Each structure stands twice: as structure tokens, then as C-alpha cells.
């Protein structure tokens, strides 16, 4: 089995008050079958042995679905492989002797918690503002009473595949959360179940997105390129469209919400 050695430049920051800086570490004898996070585990073992605090990074499922993991690797969120989360990125994508720069998602709305860990609570608040269908438990009609064209259901599923990782924000030159918000609103706005609340959902989610301090969308499409689930910017166009329609029909003022 072949192994490689790498030089890592890792962003270390002890907390939100700390300024942070890059530290250089050697990753030795890394198996090409290891995942990127396993490579970091291995480096952490050596750090602990030396009495240095291990590098903190978010991760959980390690199979590309929970959306916990994520770091900017050599300038690309989740690293060089397309449609792949950091935890699914494997070391065979790197060559012996490579220098690797590892940084956290950088956005005002994602404050750094420690090292590569950021706080993505802003995403949860966007969902809380309107990213749901109000359906009281136990009040539902029979599931097949509401046929949904396969095409619509498939499109909704395309949007719903978003894992909430935040790579779109990290990749966007403007740190915009449009792709995430568009995917989340789009999923429900497409479905018949989502129609009654479509107007308020669209407006409230957008208002919350604004309040969180993300940047605006100038259609760079970097987000789609970095998105591990390949969410299409088509949904951004849809969100824009839905937002205009909601603005036209709405009869109540649009409020930002207390953070």
C-alpha cells in the first residue's frame, strides 16, 4: 500500500476572541486509502503525543450526509474532488510532498468557534423563520390523497438533498447564503403541501437570511461548484422569482426577526 507525506498549514484559533493564525504540521505516512479526516485524526494523534491540543474540526457521520464536516482545502471548500464532502475526500487525491492549506469556512455569519469549527446556527434560524410546512402531528390526511407529479416530486427532492454544510457560503466570493436558502425554500415551495405558506415562507426566510449578515448573490455560481450535493443555482432563480411574487401579493409588512 502506498503512503504519502504532506505539509499541512492549518488554521488554529482557540476561540472567537482569538485572532488565529496558521500552524505548519507534517502529515507522515498517510495511506492513500485514508479519508481526509482520517489523515487529520492521524496528525492529531501525533499532536496529542507531543502535548499539543488536537486540531478541532466538525464531523459526525463521515459518510457525506450529515453536513457536519467542512473546511476549505487549498482554496476549495471540501477540497478538490467534485460533489464530495471533506469526510468522503480520500488521500489518493493528493500527491506525495503536497502542501495543503486548511482553513475554516470564512463568513461573518459563521463565526469561528475553534480552529476549523464554525457556528452555523444562522442556517437553523433561517429554517425556523419559515422553512417548514405547518402540519400538526396526527392531523394529516391519507398520504395518497394528494397526488404529486413525479417531475415535481423529483425536483423537490433535488433541492431537499441539501445537507446544510455551508460550503456554498464558504465558496461564494460574497459569502452569500442564497444557494442554501434557495434549496430549502425551493423544496417546499415546489410541493402542493407547501403552497399555503409559500408567501410567508419565502419572505420570512429571506428576511432572516438578510438579518444574519450574509452577502448578496452576484451569480458567480461558485456555490454550485462547491456544493457536495450538486444543488443547482436554478433554485436561486426560483427563490428570486418566488420572492418577487410574494412581495407583490403580500398584505403584511416584512419584518426581520430578533436574532
Amino acid at each position, binding site marked *: 500500500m502506498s503512503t504519502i507525506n504532506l505539509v499541512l498549514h492549518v488554521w488554529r484559533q482557540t476561540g472567537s476572541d482569538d485572532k488565529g493564525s496558521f500552524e505548519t504540521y507534517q502529515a507522515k505516512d498517510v*495511506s492513500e486509502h485514508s479519508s481526509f479526516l482520517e489523515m487529520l485524526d492521524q496528525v492529531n494523534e501525533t499532536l496529542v503525543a507531543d502535548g499539543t491540543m488536537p486540531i478541532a474540526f466538525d464531523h459526525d457521520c463521515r459518510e457525506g450526509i450529515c453536513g457536519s464536516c467542512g473546511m476549505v482545502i487549498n482554496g476549495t471548500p471540501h477540497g478538490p474532488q467534485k460533489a464530495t464532502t471533506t469526510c468522503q475526500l480520500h488521500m489518493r487525491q493528493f500527491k506525495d510532498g503536497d502542501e495543503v492549506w486548511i482553513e475554516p469556512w470564512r463568513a461573518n455569519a459563521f463565526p469561528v468557534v475553534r480552529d476549523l469549527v464554525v457556528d452555523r446556527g444562522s442556517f437553523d434560524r433561517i429554517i425556523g423563520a419559515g422553512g417548514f410546512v405547518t402540519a400538526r402531528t396526527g392531523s394529516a390526511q391519507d*398520504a395518497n390523497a394528494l397526488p404529486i407529479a413525479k417531475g415535481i416530486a423529483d425536483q*423537490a427532492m433535488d433541492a431537499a438533498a441539501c445537507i446544510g454544510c455551508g460550503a456554498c457560503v464558504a465558496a461564494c466570493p460574497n459569502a452569500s447564503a442564497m444557494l442554501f436558502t434557495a434549496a430549502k425554500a425551493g423544496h417546499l415551495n415546489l410541493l402542493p403541501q407547501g403552497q399555503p405558506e409559500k408567501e410567508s415562507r419565502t419572505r420570512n426566510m429571506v428576511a432572516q437570511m438578510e438579518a444574519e449578515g450574509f452577502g448578496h448573490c452576484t451569480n458567480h455560481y461558485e456555490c454550485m461548484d462547491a456544493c457536495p450535493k450538486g444543488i443547482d443555482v436554478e433554485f436561486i432563480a426560483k427563490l428570486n422569482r418566488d420572492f418577487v411574487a410574494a412581495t407583490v401579493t403580500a398584505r403584511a409588512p416584512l419584518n426581520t426577526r430578533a436574532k
Partner: protein
Amino acid sequence: MDLQSKAPAGDIETRWSRHKFNMKLVNPANRHKYNVIVVGTGLAGGALAATLGEQGYNVKAFCYQDSPRRAHSIAAQGGINSAKNYPNDGDSVFRLFYDTVKGGDFRARESNVYRLAEVSVNIIDQCVSQGVPFAREYGGLLANRSFGGAQVSRTFYARGQTGQQLLLGAYQSLSKQIDAGTVEMFPRTEMLELIKVDGKARGIVTRNMVSGEIESHLADVVVLCTGGYGNVFFLSTNAMGCNATATWRAHRHGALFANPCYTQIHPTCIPVSGENQSKLTLMSESLRNDGRVWVPKKKEDIQKSPADIPEEDRYYYLERIYPSFGNLVPRDIASRRAKEMCDQGLGVGPEVDGERRGVYLDFGDAVQRLGKKAVEERYGNLFEMYERITGEDPYTTPMRIYPATHYTMGGLWVDYNLESTISGLFVGGEANFSDHGANRLGASALMQGLSDGYFVLPATVANYLATAEKVEIDQSHPEVQAAVQSVRDRMEKLLSINGERSVDSFHRELGKIIWGYCGMARTKEGLETAIEKVKALRAEFWKNVRVLGGSEELNVSLEKAGRVADFLELGELMCRDALMRSESCGGHFREESQTEEGEAKRDDENYQFVGAWEWQGEEQEQVLHKEALEFEYVKPSQRSYK
């Protein structure tokens, strides 16, 4: 201790509705006066917190991830069962009940299983109304597939992301309640202790994983929905953070732990590739529909490229041993046979720890028969995932698979109300032992999690609140103080050892012991050895673990250390339970108890019971209590897949 299941008697079809009628209700105007703690926001906890919040209770919900949406339920791929019988292929509530009891090898409580099957119908309605984008047919109606060898198509799915979509449904409802203020959410907050006052569960002690702050939260009732303990094995398909701390702490306070040795091994996972591997990845079971499982017949072929092994030198062992089921035999059988082949030295793939652990899952025939395009349509995304991880292309080279720990049927013992042996402590989802017996059917865990969370617990918790006497306590109560102090002491202890070995190295070693002796096949001697080894490892842990940093900061090692410390106790109990149960049933295979053909042999006369263990104190042997199981509707029979 007398284990009262509290299951209603009489006609099984009306048990749940009669029981619901007999339970007490809480007046809507009074609900906000009741505080409920829900630990865990997976399918079970998320659904419960959302439902109780919407009903007007004052809910506090906790999870260790940064967002409730990331609970491990998100990883479930295959689907969720429901007795909707939309395809009209003969399914019914009774058949789902029957299949589940039988699939669980007659080690589950009939009343609970029947209720699960009954409620399964409402789950799909609920999820669809929330906007879960289940697969549909062209006519717009819901699509179903058959899963895990079931004879009816009762599985609902959303691409390969069913768990994710169901969890997002629950999470969105939960987020709505958080926004509305009826649920207070505590992400990145880990429960480290239970607070028990006057014999009742009254709260929890938590650690804020960012600031390190230790806090106590008090409530009128505590519900644990903290998932399974598969991570005892270190390498499993569970998420890295899955842990048993919440249930184990409750266990140490007197909640019995039932059937800890019932663990499910999934046959189609990607094999271990090296020493530094942290996690095993599940490949959907559906692959076995078209893939053929084989190993080389000759030992000298194991290092050869599979393409160089001629047809006559390939051993299609499942097709040979089980002509009628072939590659589709149930999970435990497929797993055990793979292990057997590797034990005989026929395993393939890279050598790890001096062994080759892997068998081929070959799509060569399927590609020839159906064409590459059809295969791609069915399995394209799975093949991509496989290639991403292994760097091999399954269209041209056979996949390599090996079994891995996947699910834990055991958990805290609960009665029909899902209440543990501690009054006011309820347990839902994978964390309880309730519905799957000794083996869980594919696509039934999601069903159980949502059944518990949306429908069962909201009713039984309300009943508890309506009937229990409401006693106010505050943070100054000595029990609360003591619980907080014990958590602080434990943190201090872990940080002060400052030994030589990292937490992960202990976890890895524990995993190897449990997988080796309490994995797919177990023997008396092996289990006895394992118990000694785990004890020794635990002793070393408390002398030689190295946890850097302090407790008042984000400290990954400290978090892990606490979890591993609990696994080191639970691991021993798993072995003890496996040792006690000298029969084979479901996922528990004792080599001493097998038929002549090498299949699992149950011993109903001596072991038709739930084994629930009671904590006796540190380093004390736990005491076994038995809940006898009766089967009125499904008569026990021996499984046979020949």
C-alpha cells in the same frame, strides 16, 4: 425487581386504542406549566420535541451536534416500512406485526410490535404532509419497494436518503417550535448525568461543548432518545459521535439495560482498508439483488486480480448453500457466512492486521445481462460512493464487502409506555430495547423512531404528567448539586490522569476486543476472555489515558474520553449478556447453539425472556432480571432459509 410490562391484555387489535383512552390528558391551558426534557433530536427525539412543543408543553431539547438536523438518523438510506398496502400485494398491519415478531426471532413483546405496525400507517401520512419528498410513480402516487427480503413492497423511500428526508421533516417542525419559543434548543450540549430526586427522573446535567460550562436542567419528565451504542465496536456504520453516555448514566441510576448483546451486523459494508480507519460505510442492501457474492476457491488466488480468476475457481457460497434465497438471505446469515469464508483464509482485499477481510460482490453478470446503463440506473450513486472511497470501479472490478456493526437492538428496558424502571424517565428510538427483539428488519428502525416520537411518547408522557404529583425543586436541591459535582469530578479526573495513551487508542482496542469476541459469532470461552480483557483495559484507561487542555473550552479529547469511559463499562455488560444467553437468536450467534447446517438455534424453553441488567456499583457484577415473553398471536417457529 418485578418487571411490569404494563401492556394491556385482550384483543391485540384494540390494545393501543383502549390504552390511549385509559390514559389521562393534560388540559391545553395547563400544558405550559409542565417542563419536559428531550435528550436527542434524531427521528425519535426530534419528532417528540416538535410534537410536545406544538401541543404547548415547555420543552428543552438537547443534542451534541451543532444542529438538530445532523442526528445520525440522517444516514439511513434504504427506507421506512409502513403497512399502507398501497401496492395491494397482501400487506396488512397484522402481516407487518407478524413479520417483525418473526424477524426478531421471537424475542420482542407482541403488544409493542403490534402497536408499531398499527401506527406505521399514520407515520407516512404525517411525513407526507410535512413535505417529505418520497419517491412517486408517474401517476403521482407514492412508490414502494420491497426491502430486506420482505415478500411485500411496504418500504417508502426518498432516493437513497430516506433517513435524511424524514429527519429534515421532523427538524423543520422542531425549528418552527424553536422559533415560536415552545422548544428551547441546546445544540452542542452533551448530557453527562441524570438527576434523580425522590426516585424520579427530574433533570439532567449537561456540558456546553463550546464553553465547557456544566449546567443542570430540571423538568417534570425526562425523555432519552439518544440513539444506539454501536460505537462500542469503534468501527461501525454509526456516526463518530454516537454514544451511550446518556443511557449509561441512566442505567447507573437504576434504569435496567435490556438485551445489550443483541447487535446487528450489516453484511454489505466497505471493508476495512487500513489501521487508521475510523469508520465503516454501509452500502445499501439492495446491491444484493443483482450482485453475486463469491470468494476464490483456492487460497493461492486471494491475491490475484479477480479478473484473473476463472469462473470454475470462484465459490459462490451463498448461492451454493442457500439455493432458494441465494444472495438474498437475511443479514445475519449473509454476514456470518462471509466471516466463515474469511476465517478459512479465503478473504480478499488488502491485508489489515495480518488478515484479509472481504468478499467479492460481483456485478459482472448483471452488467452483461442488463447492460451497463440499467445497472447504472439502479446503483449508479452507490457505485460512485464506492469508487470515491476505494478508488476502484465496480463496473469493471467486483466490489469488496464485509459485514460491520450497524444497529443495536438492546437498550434501556421500557414498559409499554416506553417508561424505564426509573419513574419519569422515558426512552424512545434506538435507545430503548423495545420492538425489534433479537434482530431488526430492514427499514423498521426509522418506523420505530417516528412511531415513538410522533405518536406513542406524546400520549404516554402526557399521561405521566397528568398523573404524577407535581413537586417543584430548584438548582439548590442537594441531589442536583451532587449530580453537578459528580460531573465536575469526573472531568477533573479525566484531565488529571495525564497518561501516555490517547483516548482513540483505547477506543480502538476496545472495539477490537468486542468485535473479536462479541461480534458475529460468540463462544463461552471467547466471552470470558473478552470480559477479562475489557476489565483490564478499563483499569488501564483510568490510569493511563491522556486528555490535554482544560474543561472550560471546546475540547474534543475530553468529550471522547467521557464516552469511551462509558463504552468500557457497557462493553463488558454486552459480553456478560452474551455469555448468559447460551442460545443463538437473531443477531446473537453462540457457536455452541447451532443446527447441523450451522444455523442459529434458539432455546425457547430457557431463554424466551428479555434479559434486563441492574447496575450494582462500580466494578460490581450486574444483576439479571427477566421479563418473560408470551406469544399469543405469532407462534414461535425455527427460522429456515434453506
